[in-house]
């Protein structure tokens, strides 16, 4: 019987094909098959996809409905992300069709676990992510490569202890197309050579922070892996010698050279007439030995460049900017942290006419006149970042808003000289905005009212804007239904009414920061609990919030994964009990200064995926309770505890927890209960700036 059912499952499509031509649509009553069996897998999967999108936990219920449902769910799942490595074999056995194994939640994956997991299932795995995991070595990689012949995507970033031997084992996976060996510090040219010779299908490779790799290895790589399209050599020691070989890669589209101190003007100039027609993205940020001369010379060789990143690289001169004319297709230009020489910014306007994205974040020398002239030419600009360009005033903003009306992203944190009146221009002219950062500005309710025209607004960061109140937020709540992320950090003028308006008007809300909005109470949280997609809630320093509000959030926002309730002094064990009962997605929690005791803490340990806890200055916590919690939480990767506990907890227990991959941070900050008012705090932060 079961075998027959399995048979039917195996060929649902064939059955369907057989049935479909039959002219009689009405099935005979004797052939009453379960509805799932008659449904083609493809259609069923489409249904399941929708269900999962609405609520990931719904699939679990579905699988428990019947054997057929269970089987269907098994076949449906493509990504397996186990919480604990010891459950890995069971998870892979349950989901034989999974193509992607994401181990980012397993801080420690021993070789044995890896070997037993992948060998138990004749694996269809095509992608494995071990970037957040430690504890495995060359043997584990061997097992992985041997049992997953179709492996195409392997992320082994942060394997700080892995070296040539492991790289040689990676080389067994011949079909690899994407590989990351970032931070393999012991890796040398030998290991890289093993990979380069065998994995000739590689498309994307990251060798970031592989300090042991030298020009020889890179040259061999460039010779053997001709299909590379993306190469990340950030912080490696490559020099002039391998630079031409890299640029000769025929398909290279994306080259990342962040922090390559060996790349200098000489190297950039060494290309002569070599020319990489395929290269589209070049990131040379933080290459300290490059000057404007080198940049000018390299641009001759990359005529089709779309994106250029020269952040923290060299002073921007007019001659360098004029050389941008050689790359007429340039769309994205990032010049973060650069020093602008006179007339350089102005030249951007004339040289980069097709620019879509411009980042001048933290640049010095950005003045009103030049910025105005530049943006007046950049009519197509979609994204502009002028974070911390403190000298710009209303003049610039007027130019930006009048000429770049199609902006979808404007970031201007800490542009404190722009007046509230000018900020209203943003809403009036740039109605396509999706992302807006006005943190630490002079924004007031009138400005927010103007922003009501931006109906596509998805991310709004208006922290440290002391002038905004409930009225302004009401406008946002009414007219920005797509809002996903709102940052109201230290907006002292807000009260519950404004938050309720947001909660009611923005059902898509995923992330809200209400830290130090001292006036808000449980009413806000009760209204926010209707936002079912909320996954990040930061209510640090809101002393009026109690466990009642938190319990509503726990019950309503089942996807909650990050929670910061530091200095919510009223929250106690009851709130924790609700969290443990309902918030199974919780990954990260900060409950410093709360009134939580051992009981609440222990109850949290039932949340199996909890990775990150900050437990400092909790009066009700004893060493025993803390120890017990840490022992039970199997997935912890990082715990912040007061230093006093270090001596009070049994040393072997600490070692045990650390052996599972958890990192302790022992905090030694003074106990400080009072929260200064927002205006005082803002004044302090500006005083620092003046000094």
């Amino acid at each position, binding site marked *: 019987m079961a075998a027959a059912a399995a048979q039917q499952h195996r060929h649902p499509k064939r059955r369907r094909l057989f049935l479909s031509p039959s002219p009689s649509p009405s099935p005979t009553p004797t052939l009453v098959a379960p509805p799932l069996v008659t449904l083609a897998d493809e259609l069923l999967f489409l249904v399941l996809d929708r269900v999962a999108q609405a609520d990931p936990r719904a699939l679990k219920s579905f699988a428990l409905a019947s054997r057929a449902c269970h089987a269907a769910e098994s076949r449906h799942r493509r990504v397996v992300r186990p919480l604990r490595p010891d459950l890995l074999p069971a998870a892979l056995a349950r989901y034989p069709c999974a193509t992607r194994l994401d181990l980012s939640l397993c801080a420690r994956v021993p070789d044995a676990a890896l070997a037993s997991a992948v060998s138990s299932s004749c694996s269809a795995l095509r992608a494995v992510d071990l970037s957040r995991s430690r504890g495995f070595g060359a043997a584990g990689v061997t097992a992985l490569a041997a049992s997953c012949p179709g492996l195409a995507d392997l992320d082994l970033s942060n394997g700080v202890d892995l070296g040539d*031997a492991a790289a040689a084992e990676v080389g067994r996976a011949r079909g690899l197309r994407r590989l990351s060996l970032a931070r393999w510090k012991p890796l040398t040219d030998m290991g890289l050579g093993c990979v380069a*010779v065998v994995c000739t299908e590689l498309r994307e490779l990251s060798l970031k922070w592989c300090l042991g790799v030298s020009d020889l290895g890179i040259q*061999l790589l460039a010779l053997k892996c001709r299909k590379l399209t993306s190469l990340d050599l950030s912080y490696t020691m490559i020099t002039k010698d391998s630079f031409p070989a890299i640029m000769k890669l025929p398909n290279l589209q994306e080259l990342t050279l962040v922090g390559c101190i060996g790349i200098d003007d000489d190297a950039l100039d060494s290309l002569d007439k070599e020319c990489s027609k395929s290269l589209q993205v070049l990131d040379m940020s933080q290459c300290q030995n490059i000057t404007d001369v080198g940049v000018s010379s390299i641009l001759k060789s990359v005529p089709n460049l779309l994106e250029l990143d020269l952040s923290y690289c060299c002073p921007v001169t007019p001659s360098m900017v004029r050389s941008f004319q050689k790359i007429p297709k340039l769309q994205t230009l990032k010049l973060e942290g650069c020093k602008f020489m006179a007339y350089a910014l102005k030249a951007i306007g004339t040289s980069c006419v097709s620019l879509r994205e411009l980042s001048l974040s933290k640049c010095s020398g950005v003045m009103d006149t030049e910025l105005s002239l530049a943006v007046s030419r950049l009519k197509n600009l979609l994204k502009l970042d002028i974070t911390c360009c403190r000298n710009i005033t209303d003049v610039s903003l007027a130019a930006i808003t009048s000429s770049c009306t199609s902006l979808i992203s404007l970031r201007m944190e800490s542009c404190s000289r722009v007046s509230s009146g000018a900020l209203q221009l943003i809403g009036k002219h740039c109605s396509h905005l999706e992302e807006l950062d006005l943190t630490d500005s002079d924004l007031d309710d009138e400005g927010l009212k103007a922003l009501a025209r931006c109906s596509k607004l998805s991310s709004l960061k208006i922290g440290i804007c002391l002038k905004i109140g409930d009225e302004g937020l009401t406008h946002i709540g009414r007219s920005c239904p797509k809002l996903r992320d709102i940052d109201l950090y230290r907006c002292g003028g807000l009260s519950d009414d404004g938050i309720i308006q947001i909660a009611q008007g923005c059902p898509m809300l995923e992330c809200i920061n209400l830290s130090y909005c001292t006036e808000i109470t449980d009413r806000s949280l009760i209204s926010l609990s209707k936002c079912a997609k909320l996954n990040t809630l930061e209510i640090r320093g809101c002393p009026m919030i109690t466990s009642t509000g938190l319990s509503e959030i726990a019950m309503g926002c089942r996807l909650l994964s990050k929670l910061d309730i530091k200095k919510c002094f009223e929250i106690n064990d009851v709130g924790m009990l609700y969290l443990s009962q309902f918030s199974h997605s919780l990954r990260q929690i900060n409950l410093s200064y709360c009134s939580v005791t051992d009981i609440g803490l222990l109850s949290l340990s039932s949340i199996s995926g909890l990775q990150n806890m900050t437990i400092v200055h909790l009066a009700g916590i004893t060493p025993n309770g803390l120890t017990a919690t840490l022992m039970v939480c199997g997935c912890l990767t990082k715990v912040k505890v007061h230093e006093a506990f270090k001596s009070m907890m049994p040393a072997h227990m600490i070692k045990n927890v650390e052996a599972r991959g958890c990192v302790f941070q022992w905090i030694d900050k003074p106990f400080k209960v009072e929260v200064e008012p927002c205006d005082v705090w803002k004044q302090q932060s500006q005083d620092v700036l003046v000094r």
Partner: protein
Amino acid sequence: MDLSQNHIHNQSAANLYYQFGSDNSFPGLGTQQQFPPFTSPFGASPSTNIPHMDWNPATMLDNLTFIEEKIRQVKDVIHTMVDSGGQLSCHQGEIAQKKQVVNADLTCLIVQLISTAGSLLPSLKNSSFLRHPAAGHMDMANHVGPSSGLVPNAMTVSEENKEDMCSPEDYEELFKGWTDGTIKEGIEIGNVLVEEQDMKDGDEGKDGENLPPGSCELLQLEKDEILAPHTHFCSICGKGFKRDANLRMHMRGHGDEYKSPAALAKPPRDASAEHELVKRYSCPFVSCKRNKLHKNFQPLKTILCVKNHYKRSHCEKSYTCSRCHTKKFSVMADLKTHEKHCGRDKWLCSCGTSFSRKDKLFAHVALFQGHTPALPSEEPKTCSDQISHAGSHQESTKVPNSMGSSFMWGASSGDNNALDIKGFDGCNDDFLSTANFGSFNLSFGPADGFTGEPSGGSFSMLPSEHFQSA
């Protein structure tokens, strides 16, 4: 007296040989290279001591006494030959036997003379004597007089031996030159004079040399000729030699006209070049690029180039490195060059090839499809073994320098003249070559001269083919 002395020597030689065999790393020699037994006819004779270190008049006197004694013996033998010369009853074989005895004795004398005179070398080593063997030997010839005219030539040989120290064949060859007993049917290859030094730099000829047709004389040696061990052949008797110097030494035996310093000096090169056409050579291997029938024929410049080319390209690689047991060579010099570096190669390819430099390995990997850099095997023990093995070789080439020399000098010089090993170790190459020369002398000691018997047992340790030709 002869017998007893020889007996003693054989004994000491056996000991020494044992010692030698136990120590695989002898300076300048492959570890398993056969070496003629170290049997000194002079045994504990202090002649081989280093005079400049402890120049002992008593030793010198001993040496001279020994030479005197030896001359007397030879005289006796020749007397008997003269006496029996008239008697018809004497067998031809017996005469031949005695001739051989005389030859051996003379060799022995020469050797002794050289080693005695060699004691002068260290004091001379800074003079131009060693730097310019020809000039030096002229001076020396004048100085020592015709009776000891052999000495400077021997010096020249010792100078040459610096190139490849202690190669047994060379010694045997020289020995053959002296004994001069048999006439080998050699192959006449004109009077091509090839300097030994050419072997290194003039190898394989230089490509791209464009000589107009007819401007050079194209020769093609046959395979047998190429593979013959010698390149210098006596125009009178046809005997073959590896070195021109040895040939010249040999030529003296053909008459007084060859004895003059002028004749013994190196023939001027340009003189012959003026008169003769430039000679170029073709490889006998058809379809080889160096064969004259080849479309893009590139001739070889010297006969040595021919030999090396033929061996390298068309012969089996019969010399295997005794350290790695993988690399094979058809030319001995290549093996020696390799052995100097063998064991240092820590950059391995998956195909088994190893390289002394990483960039060489990567160039190799870049060139060949499917070859990958090979990591040192899993357990680091093997790796470190290999390295330490190589390291021990490195060390052993240093340490045994002193051991070997103590073996050459100190051990044979008996108890009273224990050698200050460290002092010797500090000596430079010039001196080392002399030292080797000394050992060479001794190693050919067992010539049948002392036993008074023609050939036989004492020769058995020599490689047979050389003995055959001797």
